């Protein structure tokens, strides 16, 4: 059946990109892009960095330079939530009572910041939207002491932003090390050392018990005693927004479950970006759900092709980065599938790690340092991973051995 009406729920990177990619691929039918936020789709990565730390009042970094969606005839329905999917009638119901008919529906509902599971959690700011960033920015600019709960990317980036503004920063992490979920130990340790050198107080293996308001800020009661701060920000992960899919009876696991074409258990409905739980063909069909700009971008582009009839499975590699101070951390591939790790010292405080599986095939790489030192190596590693290359550990460890020549 030819597609005439495509409705996209969620106007973030994934949803916005899908709309642009559909038009760029020649789709001439109706595209409705439904988003709860009033802004046009914008990039979230700057929210923990430039939006907080820059002297100038920030504006959202809009995808496709502002007017592009309108130019391409994408109908934007902004500031309205989607509340239900009628799969039989193929209609999406909005909070204001409107109903949108679809031939194909794309769920790009994203994730929401996880609240702290403790009394006083509402006193901790969390980051997801541009408005969240503005709120955190105002509070940090007015503060002397900033407490950050959670040693993941968001927490560390906000700590670096607050430190660059000269604030006293304490970062608290429940685990015995930072970034356990995402980052190999040597790179996490190097980042931690940099934060310490910048003057961030890092408290690990700490349990937060409750947060209470004081006359000028908050007091955070922990297993290591009480700490006062003017503002507390929590970055303790995000949960996929699956309610719409769940209520419609779609298969939901760690996110909305999709196949290699990003199609849910209903062939007329797709899911992409932070909310999608998808199989990766390069890693034995291992299921992944990625909260990352690059994945949102790639899946937005892929779903457009899938909607227009391409059958190739989504195979872009997981890839993410984090900017802290003048360091960029970049990770590509799935490190958990590796059996051994090879380090390469790039000099000038930059290093790379390569993860090889039991057959010596490169399955992941990580880089930390100034981006001009690591970016080329990461990009080459990405190509080597995609080719499932078997590489010599000796050569990988040698900074003089060109990765380009291994392609």
């Amino acid at each position, binding site marked *: 059946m030819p597609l005439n009406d495509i409705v996209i729920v969620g106007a973030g990177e994934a949803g916005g990109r899908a709309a*642009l*990619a559909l038009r760029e691929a020649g789709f001439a039918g109706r595209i409705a892009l439904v988003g709860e936020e009033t802004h046009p789709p914008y990039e979230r990565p700057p929210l923990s960095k430039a939006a907080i730390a820059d002297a100038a009042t920030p504006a959202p970094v809009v*995808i496709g330079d502002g007017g592009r969606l309108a130019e391409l005839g994408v109908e934007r329905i902004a500031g309205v939530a989607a509340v239900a999917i009628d799969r039989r009638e193929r209609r999406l119901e909005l909070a204001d009572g409107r109903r949108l008919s679809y031939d194909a529906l794309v769920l790009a509902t994203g994730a929401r910041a996880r609240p702290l599971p403790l009394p006083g959690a509402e006193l901790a700011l969390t980051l997801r939207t541009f408005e969240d960033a503005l709120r955190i920015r105002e509070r940090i600019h007015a503060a002397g002491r900033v407490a950050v709960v959670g040693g993941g990317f968001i927490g560390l980036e906000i700590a670096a932003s607050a430190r660059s503004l000269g604030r006293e920063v304490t970062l608290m992490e429940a685990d015995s090390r930072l970034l356990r979920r995402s980052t190999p130990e040597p790179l996490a340790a190097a980042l931690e050392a940099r934060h310490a050198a910048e003057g961030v107080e890092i408290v690990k293996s700490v349990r937060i018990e409750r947060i209470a308001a004081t006359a000028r800020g908050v007091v955070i009661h922990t297993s290591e005693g009480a700490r006062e701060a003017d503002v507390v920000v929590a970055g303790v992960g995000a949960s996929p927004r699956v309610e719409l899919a769940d209520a419609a009876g779609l298969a939901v696991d760690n996110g909305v479950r999709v196949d290699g074409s990003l199609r849910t258990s209903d062939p007329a409905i797709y899911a992409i970006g932070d909310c999608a739980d998808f199989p990766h063909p390069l890693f034995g069909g291992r299921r992944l759900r990625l909260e990352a*700009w690059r994945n949102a971008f790639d899946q937005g582009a892929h779903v457009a092709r899938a909607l227009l009839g391409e059958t190739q499975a989504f195979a872009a590699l997981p890839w993410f980065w984090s900017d802290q101070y003048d360091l960029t951390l970049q990770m590509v591939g799935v490190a958990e599938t590796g059996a051994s790790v090879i380090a390469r010292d790039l000099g000038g405080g930059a290093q790379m790690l390569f993860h090889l599986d039991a057959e010596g095939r490169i399955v992941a790489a990580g880089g930390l340092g100034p*981006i*001009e*030192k690591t*970016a*080329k190596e990461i*990009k080459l590693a990405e190509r080597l991973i995609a080719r499932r290359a078997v590489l010599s550990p000796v050569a990988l460890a040698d900074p003089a051995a060109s990765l380009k020549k291994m392609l």
Partner: protein
Amino acid sequence: MPQWIDVCALGDIDAEDVLRFDHEGNTYAVYRSPDDEYFATDGLCTHEKVHLAGGLVMDDIIECPKHNGRFNYKTGAAKGAPVCVDLKTYRAKVQGTRVLIEI
């Protein structure tokens, strides 16, 4: 009036690679193609102002270090999302053992 400005020695850029060149408050990227021709563009990605010289050159494409925006460095053409604005290009030439660009 554009002028030819000395950038570097011939051997300072590897084949199929790129060098950052700063001059009078502006930043440029100077490329050596796989077949040893030289090219120059503005130094910052048109997407989020990242220095392109940190990126990867493959054939006639420069890939931005940050978001993988791709440009043809010979023509400046943006090769698709997330970059949609072309790069400004400059003429480059070899004089003796030096690389010069016209800016």
